[in-house]
């Protein structure tokens, strides 16, 4: 297909915003994995809790309160989950971690279905985020009619801000220094007398909180139904693995890669449906530790 500049721009924007929702989910997943070494299959369910909370608060009290309340609530849920369940599994095999969190995901999904029904709950976008952006206003080299939904562009901005904040936290604070050291060698830190345990708790809470942010902004895009969590789980996992387990930069890179791949293959549906798996297989076979994975981590 002959691609015009406009069509190309549209595909780029689509790839970016697809990547944004992936990155918001994969970020927490890879953070938890990299730091705690826990494969959290319930991460999609955390996102599910976030979108149901967000849509409930949004429809009752407005978007502002959803934005203020949901991420901290998710943080608390994350902390409780880590204390109550996850910490029992630090020394257990990955298989057990996968299985217990998978069971948890089913339980959360079914509880939410019980409470809210299986059907979609409409998540209305706040008026300031509604409507479309005329891309010509921002990208003057485009000629004619190129538009994109404003909300999806906001999502891209939110993803960029969130990623930057997490990077800043890890690279510019003492807390981040300890965490990064923990990602390299948790045992060593224990020897040095650092209480890594409490920090693990905070990291898990942080991962859940990012899912909370994802839920507030992603809910109107992914929609609100009990299936959403499981549907996002597999692609997010593949992205984490493509990027390299535990590598934040890798997760960002892989999210954009997958987003772009899906966007540009959209007219070729046979390839479009398998592209994410194809990329996973090729990358893992050529570069076993993923795009930016550290050597020797969980190989």
């Amino acid at each position: 297909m002959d691609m015009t500049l406009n069509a190309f721009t549209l595909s780029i924007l689509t790839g970016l915003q697809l990547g944004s929702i992936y990155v918001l989910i994969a970020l927490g997943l890879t953070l938890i994995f990299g730091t705690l070494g826990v494969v959290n299959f319930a991460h999609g369910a955390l996102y599910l809790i976030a979108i149901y909370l967000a849509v409930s608060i949004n429809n009752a009290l407005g978007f502002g309160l959803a934005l203020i309340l949901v991420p901290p609530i998710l943080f608390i849920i994350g902390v409780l989950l880590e204390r109550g369940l996850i910490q029992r599994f630090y020394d257990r095999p990955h298989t057990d971690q996968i299985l217990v969190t998978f069971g948890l995901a089913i339980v959360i999904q079914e509880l939410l279905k019980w409470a809210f029904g299986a059907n979609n709950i409409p998540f209305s976008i706040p008026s300031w985020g509604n409507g479309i952006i005329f891309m010509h206003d921002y990208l003057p080299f485009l000629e004619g009619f190129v538009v994109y939904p404003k909300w999806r562009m906001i999502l891209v901005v939110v993803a960029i801000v969130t990623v930057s904040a997490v990077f800043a936290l890890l690279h510019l604070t003492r807390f981040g220094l300890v965490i990064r050291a923990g990602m390299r060698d948790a045992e060593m830190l224990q020897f040095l007398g650092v209480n890594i345990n409490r920090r693990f708790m905070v990291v898990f809470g942080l991962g859940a909180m990012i899912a909370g942010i994802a839920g507030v902004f992603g809910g109107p895009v992914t929609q609100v139904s009990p299936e959403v969590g499981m549907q996002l789980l597999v692609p997010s996992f593949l992205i984490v693995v493509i990027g390299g387990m535990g590598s934040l930069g890798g997760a960002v890179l892989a999210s954009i890669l997958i987003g772009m791949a899906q966007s540009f293959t959209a007219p070729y549906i046979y390839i479009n449906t398998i592209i994410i798996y194809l990329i996973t297989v090729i990358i893992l076979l050529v570069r076993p530790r993923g795009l930016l994975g550290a050597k020797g981590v969980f190989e």
Partner: protein
Amino acid sequence: MTTQNNFWQHNRTVLIFALIALTMPFWFPLMGGYSGLDTKIMIFCIFVVGFDILLGFTGYLSFGHAAFFGISAYVTGIMLKSFSDNIIPAILVAVLAATVVAVIIGLLTLKRTGIYFSILTLAFAEMFDSMAMSMLQKWTGGENGLTGMPTPMLFNLKMQGDTVFYFVTLMAILLFYLAKRIERSPVGLMMKAIKCNQTRLEFTGINARKYKLLAFVISAVYAAIAGALMVVYEPFVGHEFLGWHQSGEIVIMSVIGGVGTLVGPMLGAGFMLYFENVLSVNLGEQWLLVLGAIFMAVVIFMPGGFMEGIARLKKRYFTTVDGE
């Protein structure tokens, strides 16, 4: 006398299994089971026993074994539909096809370990699932599934009802016996050594890859036989056979039963199918919630699954018998 004793000792589990399985039609209905479900349980027993040769022996967790199950089922279905209604050529071709795929995937994926291996197998299986749903729809029937096969025949014998049950059960007994033989054989010991410490094994000059691949392919063959038998049991193939939920279900069965015990996964398979199809009716809409909770509880409190539970009970009530 001693040889007889040996035979009994070696094959006690197999014989007990055979006894329980073959009498199933008589006792299963008493607990709410029904014809058809017993056959399905036997088919999944085959699937999980094979899976345990990979997961239980070598420790490799595959999230994509549904691929072999599904590919074999599709090939069986297409063979029955367009070649002959005799199940023997259909099963042979199907298992062969799945084996070829397994060798290729095994060679590619077994270079990786741990979570990377799991994700790779998952990606392959999901790729097949997506293909069955889109580009291969003409042959697979897509979302509608593959239907319209003739009644499967074993030469002149119609494969319906009881005939299928006993055919499947005999296969299950045979395959369980073979798995037991593998477990005791030097090859089985090698596989188990991989689980303990692969690096050390390789230092001793043993080619661990060969044994890993062998375990992978054997388990895929079991999955393929199970997949083919699903079509013999019921002439229908759904794309769900290939999906990651199917792979996940096999993992769940294995874990709640007790990985590495061969018997445990079969218990797990029986429990899961019984729960999904019999108890679910009493629990109504919330059955999946209850199942999820049970599943979590088992993983948290009984990491060794039902087999650990049984061992604990034994220990509590029969310790003196063992002469401790």
